[in-house]
């Protein structure tokens, strides 16, 4: 087995990998940028080393410095997490070149799937259905417009090196093509250092359904069923489920087999995901993510299989212990992404320092977080604070449990997606499984939710009581720790005790 790992990431996924590694007895080596000195992934690792300033290009994306730390700390392997360098073939190659184990697929696999146009060609050859569109990057805004008119509107522009919705733009009219091309190229350039953009037919109301895969170095590939990730905003996933509420047994099998074909086409080793768009009974290959996904916990909860554990085992050369027919699919799991954004204010990024932090507990609830009291939420990195996952015997139970857990979750000091997620858990279309990637657009009422009268009354009462307690001078805003102001109920109760001088 692998003895030590450098985790080339931060936030909740670094902590997730550290947990998985530690359970296998693997020594964990964290890295941190300057503002992350006191971050949870540093505190929870066995070792931690600085790698530079806040800007990702100078720290978490600095391959030379990461390998230098790996060498000095005696790391035997490197786990990239997701984002940052996770899908950079040159990083995987550099890790291998330094004599270390890269916990992920081979550089050629990453390269094949990382280039979206190359991936399309491979998938078509392997008999995996793809969305109509180009296989070559676009040269200019003018070409974008021309190709779009040929494919037929609406179309979507996507970064060739992309993922996670960055560098993505939907174009519905010829006149918008050139402007959208420019914006997508700038975003892609900033996010991936690669501004190449290609074009595809845009499906109007698709569902985003993806299949989790595991492959080993001995030629075995299994799928762990699908996840439905249709609830998105700005092409970024917000809520994910396993299994999909929509698929029947036959569709599930067809999609799983197509995903396995896709993985075999690129000799896939490790954990990976094939994303599909599903509309009107048809599904199309969207892209393959050659890494762990943010939403992997829902799959872990319905199959009982620890994906990080198997990433390490497969990287160490072990053979997969489970065959396809042995993989269970039990109950239903839902994940909510808790992000530092103001959902009722156009999803504007929110910043702050995490104050009070209340983590939900009890049956069927899992919290994969990357924050602690005192964590500074800035703008340097991804706004994902953590993931709340609920599992139940069926979708209805999982939703009820998630609603309960969201109510328990308390993150002080920074605005989060939590109140919107709570509203979605109550919304009839979501509860009935009537969802698509346009769900949020089609439910604008969610964003104009009034504060209910009882909550408004509580806020008014709290403000008045706090001010009253703080006193006119406001020098010592104290409230007694016992029930204060004393509730009349307490008094009534006390009055049944033996008489006291001030009893009524």
């Amino acid at each position, binding site marked *: 087995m692998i003895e030590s790992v450098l985790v080339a990431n931060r936030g909740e996924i670094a902590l997730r990998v550290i947990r998985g590694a530690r359970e296998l007895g693997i020594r964990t080596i964290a890295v941190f940028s300057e503002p992350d000195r006191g971050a949870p992934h540093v505190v929870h690792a066995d070792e931690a080393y600085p790698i530079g300033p806040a800007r990702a290009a100078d720290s978490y994306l600095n391959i030379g410095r990461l390998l230098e730390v790996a060498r000095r700390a005696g790391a035997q392997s490197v786990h990239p997490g997701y984002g940052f360098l996770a899908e950079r073939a040159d990083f995987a190659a550099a890790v291998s070149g330094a004599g270390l184990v890269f916990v992920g697929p081979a550089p050629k696999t990453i390269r094949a799937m990382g280039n979206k146009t190359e991936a399309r060609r491979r998938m078509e050859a392997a008999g995996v259905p793809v969305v109509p569109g180009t296989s070559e990057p676009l040269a200019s805004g003018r070409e974008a417009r021309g190709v779009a008119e040929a494919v037929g509107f609406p179309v979507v522009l996507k970064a060739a090196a992309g993922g996670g919705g*960055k560098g993505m733009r939907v174009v519905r009219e010829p006149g918008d093509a050139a402007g959208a091309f420019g*914006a997508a190229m*700038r*975003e892609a350039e*900033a*996010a991936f250092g690669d501004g190449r953009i290609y074009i595809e037919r845009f499906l109007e109301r698709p569902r985003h359904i993806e299949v989790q895969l595991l492959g080993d170095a001995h030629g075995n590939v299994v799928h762990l069923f699908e996840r439905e990730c249709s609830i998105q905003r700005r092409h970024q996933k917000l809520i994910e489920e396993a299994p999909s509420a929509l698929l029947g047994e036959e569709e599930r099998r067809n999609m799983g087999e197509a995903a396995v074909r896709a993985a075999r086409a690129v000799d896939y080793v490790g954990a990976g995901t094939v994303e599909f768009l599903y509309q009107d009974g048809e599904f199309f290959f969207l892209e393959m993510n050659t890494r762990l996904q943010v939403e992997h916990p829902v799959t872990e909860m319905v199959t009982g299989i620890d994906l990080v554990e198997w990433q390490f085992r497969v990287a160490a050369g072990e053979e997969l212990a489970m065959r396809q027919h042995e993989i269970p699919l039990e109950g239903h799991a839902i994940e909510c992404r808790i992000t530092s954004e103001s959902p*009722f*204010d*156009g999803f*504007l*990024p*929110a*910043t702050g320092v*995490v*104050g*009070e932090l209340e983590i939900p507990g009890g049956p069927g609830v899992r919290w994969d977080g990357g924050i602690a*009291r005192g964590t500074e939420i800035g*703008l340097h*990195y*991804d706004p994902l604070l953590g993931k709340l996952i609920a599992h139940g015997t069926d979708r209805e139970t999982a939703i009820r449990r998630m609603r309960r857990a*969201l*109510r328990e*979750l*308390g*993150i*002080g*000091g920074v605005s989060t997606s*939590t*109140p919107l997620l*709570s509203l979605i858990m109550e919304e009839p279309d979501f509860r009935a499984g009537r969802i698509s990637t346009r769900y949020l657009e089609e439910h604008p009422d969610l964003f104009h939710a009034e*504060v209910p009268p*009882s*909550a408004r*009354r*509580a*806020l*008014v*009462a*709290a*403000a*008045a*009581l*706090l*001010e*009253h307690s*703080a006193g006119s001078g*406001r020098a010592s*805003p104290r*409230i*007694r*720790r*016992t*029930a*204060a*102001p*004393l*509730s*009349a*109920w307490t*008094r009534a109760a006390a009055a049944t005790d033996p008489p006291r001088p001030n009893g009524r």
Partner: protein
Amino acid sequence: MTRSNATSHPGTRYVVSLLGERHDVEVRSDGTIVIDGFRLHASLAPTGPPHTAASRPPLSGEGYSLLLDGTSFALRARGGHGGEWRLELDGRAVEAEVLDPRAHRMRQLSAKAGTGAKLAPLKAPMPGLVVQVPVEEGQVVEAGDTLLIVEAMKMENELSAPAAATVSRLRAAPGDAVEKGQLLVEFAEAEEA
């Protein structure tokens, strides 16, 4: 909750402004509170570790449990200056202002003096980097027109005009790093359509 009636517990009166509405509140010494004429039993208790008066953390909210006629609410609260409180309930943050009735009347009178019809200037809703400014000073814009593109957290955010107006002054240019709340665009009076 009952309609308030005459009582032997005269309380302290406040005007609470919250979510754009004004509420008349009376905190009584018998453990009840009267909100807009309705009387409720109320109990507020901090839930966090005790602090001495001098050691109250000013930078993050403290937790409180509020019982209002028995109904339980978990809040976080942080006090500002002049009766301002920032409250968090069910994941939503709300600003409240608590004044005594006389201070509230004074505030209203002074506000009336300076009312105008000009569109409020656009301020940065979050910190970020200005990527594009597709309008010019003097340009007439419609509601929804993009005024600036600001990059934050690796995403481009388009800031658009809330209503028809004339751009009178641009306070930011591409490449500028802006702080939350920083003035970006000022407007002249709205054009008559």
